[in-house]
C-alpha cells in the first residue's frame, strides 16, 4: 500500500490549518502557494453553512490551539510575561510555538525550550537578563513536581558519632538545581513580583536591594492539563499571528552582566530560589557531584583557622538543613 491514508491526510491538513500563525484562511493560502493543498481543500474537508462557514468553524480550533498554549506559557513564565508586556509576550510565544510546537502529551513540558529560544530571539538579544530570568522561571516550574525525598534533619546529624559524621554522604534532594547565570535574575524576579503586587500603574524599576534573598513560590506553579479544552479567546486577535498595538510597549528591563549563582529547590511543596556567594556555589557543585561531610569540611578549612572553619561548616550545614536541601539517602 502506498501513500498516506485518507485519515492521515485529513489530520495533516487539519493540523496545518489550525496551527497556521495567521489563521485558517491565510494558512490555506500559504499551503496553496507551496503546492501542498488545493484551493478548495478546506471546503472539501469541512462542511460549512451560512451561519458558520468552514473556515470559521476551523478557526475555533485554531484559536483554542494558540490561546491554550499561550496561557500555559504565561503560567510557567509569569515574571517574563510581566517584564515584556502582553503583546510582546504574545508575539514571543507565537514565534516559539512555530519553532517548538508541543512534542509531549503533557502541557507541563511545553515551555522547556523557551529560555534557549529566547536567547536567539530579538527580545532576548535586546535584553539578555530576560534569558536568565526565563532560565530561573523554568527551573522553578521544573522542580515543582520533581521527585520527593526525605530531607536530612538536625536530629539525623546529631545521631551520628563524630567519626561517622565525616563519612556522611551529602547529596541534594532531587528537587534541587544550581544555576550559573550571567545576570542577577533573582533581583529582576523580585522586582517584577513587586511590580505585579503593586498593580499595573506602578513604574517598573523597583528599588530592591541587591544580594541574596529567599523567594517563595505560590502554590499553583506548573501548567495543568484540563479536560475542557475550549478557551475564551480575545476576538480582537487573529489566531496565533503577531499582534500590533498602538500603545507603546513597556521598556525592556536592563541589567549589567553580573555572574550570579542561584540555588533553586523545593521544600515540601514550595519552590524557593536564592542567590548564593561563590564559595557556597562551589560547595553546592561539589554536593551535586556527590560528596561527604568530611570533604565539605576540608574545602572550608582552606585559608581558615580551625575555629573559623568549624564555624563556617556549622553555618553552611545549618542553612542547608533548614532549607531542606540535603537528602537523607543518596539518589
Amino acid at each position, binding site marked *: 500500500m502506498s501513500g*498516506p*491514508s*485518507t*485519515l*492521515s491526510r*485529513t*489530520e*495533516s491538513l*487539519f*493540523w496545518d490549518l*489550525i*496551527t497556521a500563525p495567521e489563521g485558517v484562511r491565510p494558512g490555506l493560502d500559504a499551503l496553496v502557494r507551496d503546492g501542498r493543498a488545493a484551493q478548495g481543500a478546506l471546503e*472539501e*474537508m*469541512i*462542511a460549512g453553512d451560512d*451561519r*458558520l462557514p*468552514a473556515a*470559521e*468553524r*476551523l478557526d*475555533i*480550533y485554531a484559536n*483554542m*490551539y494558540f490561546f*491554550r*498554549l499561550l496561557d*500555559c506559557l504565561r503560567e510557567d513564565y509569569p515574571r517574563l510575561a510581566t517584564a515584556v508586556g502582553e503583546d510582546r509576550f504574545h508575539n514571543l510565544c507565537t514565534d516559539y510555538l512555530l519553532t517548538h*510546537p*508541543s*512534542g*509531549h*502529551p*503533557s*502541557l*507541563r513540558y*511545553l515551555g522547556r525550550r523557551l529560555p534557549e529560544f529566547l536567547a536567539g530571539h530579538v527580545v532576548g538579544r535586546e535584553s539578555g537578563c530576560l534569558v536568565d530570568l526565563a532560565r530561573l522561571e523554568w527551573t522553578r516550574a521544573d522542580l*515543582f*513536581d*520533581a*521527585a*520527593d*525525598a526525605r530531607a536530612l534533619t538536625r536530629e539525623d546529624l546529631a545521631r551520628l558519632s563524630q567519626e561517622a559524621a565525616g563519612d556522611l554522604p551529602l547529596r541534594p534532594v*532531587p*528537587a534541587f538545581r544550581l544555576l550559573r547565570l550571567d545576570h542577577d535574575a533573582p533581583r529582576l524576579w523580585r522586582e517584577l513580583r513587586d511590580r505585579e503586587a503593586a498593580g499595573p500603574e506602578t513604574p517598573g524599576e523597583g528599588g530592591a536591594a541587591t544580594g541574596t534573598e529567599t523567594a517563595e513560590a505560590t*502554590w*499553583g506553579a*506548573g501548567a*495543568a*492539563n*484540563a*479536560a*475542557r*479544552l*475550549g*478557551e*475564551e479567546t480575545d476576538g480582537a486577535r487573529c489566531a496565533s499571528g503577531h499582534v500590533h498595538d498602538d500603545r507603546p510597549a513597556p521598556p525592556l528591563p536592563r541589567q549589567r552582566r553580573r555572574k550570579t549563582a542561584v540555588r533553586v529547590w*523545593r521544600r515540601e*511543596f514550595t519552590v524557593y530560589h536564592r542567590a548564593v556567594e561563590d564559595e557556597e556555589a562551589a560547595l553546592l557543585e561539589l554536593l551535586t557531584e556527590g560528596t561527604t561531610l568530611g570533604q565539605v569540611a576540608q574545602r572550608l578549612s582552606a585559608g581558615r583557622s580551625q575555629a573559623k572553619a568549624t564555624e563556617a561548616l556549622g553555618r553552611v550545614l545549618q542553612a542547608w538543613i533548614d532549607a531542606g536541601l540535603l537528602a537523607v539517602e543518596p539518589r
Partner: protein
Amino acid sequence: MRPASLGHGVGLRREHFERVLSAPTRIDWFEVISENFMADGGRPVDVLDQVRARYPIVLHGVSLSIGSTDPLNKPYLDRLAALARRTEPAWVSDHLCWAGVGGHYAHDLLPLPYTEEALRHVVGRVDQVQEHLGRPIALENVSSYVTFRQSSMPEWEFLAEIARRSGCGILLDVNNIYVSSRNHGFDPRAYVEGIPKDCVWQFHLAGHADKGKYLLDTHDHPVPDPVWELYALAVERFGAVSALVEWDDRLPDFERLEQESLRARQIEAGILHPATAGASHPKAAAGEAAP
C-alpha cells in the same frame, strides 16, 4: 461488562485540594486528569494519594490521542499504566478524538471523521491500549465544531460501533452531546437513544458558553437546564450510571460545585426512585433552585 455506579462525583481541581482534604464532602468519588498526576513527586502526587485513600477515583486522560494516525506514544502509556497500578482507579478513560499528529500535540480534543477507515483505526488502537494497560478503557464523546464531508455515519453510531467492536466503555458527556447538537443541528435525544444501553460506564455534566453562532465547551458555567434535561433522558435510558460534574474555569467554591453534583443525584433519584425522592425531574422542577 458495565461497572457498578460509583454514584455522583466531581472533577478534582487544584483550587479545591485543600478543601477536599481538610473536611468531609458529600461527593461519592473524584475524577482526576491523568496527565496532571504523571509526576515524580510534589504536591499533586501527595494530594492524589490522600484523596485516593478516602474516595474512589477515575483516571481521565486528555492526551491518549486514540484517533491520531501517529503511532501510540509508548512512554505515555507506560506512565499511564504505572499511575493506574499505583492508584487502582475504578476505570481509566480518555476521549474519542485525536490530539495531534506528526509528533506534535495540540492539547485539544480534535474531531474525527466518522468513516469506516477511522473506525477500524480507532478500534485497533483501543485494543493495543487495553492490552498495554491490562484493563478496559472508556472513551468520551467530545464537543465538536466541524463536520467532515467524508463522514458516512452519525457520531453516535461511530461511538457505539467502537464500543461494540473493541469492548471499551462509553463515557457519555451529556454536555458535549448538547453542544454538538446545537453546532451541527441534530436532535440530542437521537444521540442518547442511539447509544446501546449496556455500554455506558459514566456520564459527564458541565456548562458551556454561548458564543452567538455556536456553543463552546468551556466548563466555566453551571450545568444549564437543557443539559440537565438531557441528563434526565440519559438516566431514563441507561439507569444508575456514575455521573460527574466538570468545572474547570472560573471555578466556584467547592460547596457550589458540590451542589451541582447533589442536583445530579436528586435528578437520578427522582427518575429511578420517584416514590422516595420527591419531584426532582428537571422538567418538574423547572425554576427550582439547585438543592
